[in-house]
């Protein structure tokens, strides 16, 4: 690996500062004892951390977002893996159209998507339901999923699959025993990225949420809309720390930089 020059070091330092500083501020503010967002702190207090427990709607929304993210990311994987395989392996009529359709949510502003889906889902009675939100999230996150699965596939020599076939394996067996194990890191990376994107999604969800289907970002957004107490800071800090913990544990078993580039273990 090459060493960084002074300019690159300065750049990385600034980059990290701008990424990390807001997170540190949020975590800091969450330990205030005052009734308002204050920094610097006048002594540490767990008042607003305890307040999370007194507001069950945040916990409910957290579990709802978790279910939403897991369901949407899993459904998205079920769509993206066969799609990526078809796109990578075959030249068929409508291939270009399929690529464009699956990637289009990246190019459409989420506000537009939100309004359109609200109008569309109302016709089916899907608006404000779990199923509606899942559908919307699958649409939003599938482009990411497709990219990472595709990256994993492009690193896979099709001759490896042909070798398996010549040894007597059916197409399904080739997929199960050879293709899937080899693209698993890409699929896992795509799943994580898709889950995080879903968990974090606000714009589209705002249009489709209802009191009975209220993801955490929407809950937080609505809460800030009405009042600004440090409860949002402690909820955010809990999310930040929780995510960091999950990533740390994950990284021990599966290096994340490789997951996100879809590389196989070297």
């Amino acid at each position, binding site marked *: 690996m090459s060493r960084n020059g002074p300019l690159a070091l300065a750049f990385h330092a600034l980059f990290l500062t701008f990424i990390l500083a807001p997170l540190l501020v949020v975590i800091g503010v969450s330990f205030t004892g005052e009734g308002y967002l204050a920094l610097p702190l006048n002594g540490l207090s767990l008042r607003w951390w305890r307040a999370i427990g007194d507001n069950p709607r945040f916990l409910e929304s957290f579990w709802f977002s978790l279910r939403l993210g897991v369901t949407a990311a899993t459904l998205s994987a079920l769509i993206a893996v066969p799609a990526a395989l078809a796109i990578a392996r075959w030249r068929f009529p409508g291939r270009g159209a399929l690529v464009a359709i699956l990637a289009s949510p990246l190019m459409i502003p989420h506000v537009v998507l939100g309004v359109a889906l609200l109008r569309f889902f109302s016709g089916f009675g899907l608006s404000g339901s779990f199923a509606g939100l899942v559908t919307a999230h699958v649409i939003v996150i599938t482009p990411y999923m497709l990219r990472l699965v595709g990256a994993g596939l492009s690193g896979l*020599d099709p*001759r*490896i699959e*042909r*070798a*398996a*076939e*010549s*040894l*007597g*394996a*059916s197409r399904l*067996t080739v997929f199960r*025993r*050879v293709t899937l*194990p*080899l693209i698993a890191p890409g699929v896992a990376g795509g799943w994580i990225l898709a889950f995080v994107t879903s968990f974090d999604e606000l714009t589209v969800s705002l249009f489709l949420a209802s009191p009975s289907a209220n993801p955490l970002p929407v809950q937080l957004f609505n809460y800030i809309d009405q009042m600004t107490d440090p409860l949002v800071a402690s909820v955010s800090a809990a999310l930040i720390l929780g995510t960091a913990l999950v990533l740390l544990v994950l990284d021990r078993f599966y290096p994340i930089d490789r997951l996100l580039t879809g590389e*196989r273990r*070297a």
Partner: protein
Amino acid sequence: MAAPHFLTLDRIGKDYGAFTAIREVSFSVAPGEFLGLLGPSGCGKTTTLQMIAGFEAPSRGRITMDGRDLTTVPAAKRGIGLVFQSYALFPHMTAAENVAFGLEMRRVSKAERIKRVAEALDLVHLAHLADRFPRQMSGGQQQRVALARALVIEPRLLLLDEPLSNLDAKLREEMQVELRELQRRIGVTTILVTHDQSEAMALCDRVAIMQGGRIVQIDAPWRAYDVPADDFVADFLGRSNRLPACAGGGQAEAGGHRFALPPDLADRQGDILLTIRPERLRIGNDGAAGLGGRVQSRLFLGGFWLYAVETALGSFAVMLQNTGSVPHDEGAPVTLDWDAHSLRRLERA
């Protein structure tokens, strides 16, 4: 009774849209034969191999193996062993698991599987690396695993796609000897695809030289080398020198030198294009009978000297065995001489 022809390609053609990759290819392979498909890249040799393996369907013609039409038989059911240039090992399986894969697909019992995997790895001298993953092995070792994996299923036909091209020169030579020996011992019918003429000539019983989607010549390597069908084959299989001459009365004249023509060309009259291989030329000292010239350069190759001799008819490559005699100096005037039977007439394409 064994069929005289084990594998037959009958007027095979392949189009990709408007592009014709294979115009018309026909050949037969005898049981146990080692056939080479030889040609420059883009000549259609790999496409031909893919059609035999079952990964591409021919647009025209028929492929039969053991008297059975292969057209509708999927790749997985053909019982053909395949070895690729890129090895194409399963990276997530050990050497032993790679070799066992084909046996698992054939539902061979576990005890039998373990025995046959061990035998196959032994055959390629890799028994001690059974538990290594491909990434922990050298290129040569990976290629041996690929070979064991293809052979363990006792294939009816072995297809080798540039199998040694990724190996360095010394290892390649070792593997050539080993491959030839192994093929003889097992007796498996084998087709080798390669662009390396020396590899094809060293390994194969017959070579089919391909150009532009058709076979130009199919013959034993030494015959194709000695009696090339045309200009292309003469150039592709080793080096050759061109000797434009004027024929008449069983003799020919070139650059002021008169020489005899071989019997098959004795009745030729007028302009004629002859070729001669570098190792068939002799260099004589200045004043001897022959085509006059001057030593332009010389390279010492250990067992051989490779000279370039400049003459009135252009530069001639001459390969002389190193017999221990004093070499000719660069710049020295010399003459070139040859036996009449070493001359070939080139068919003009």
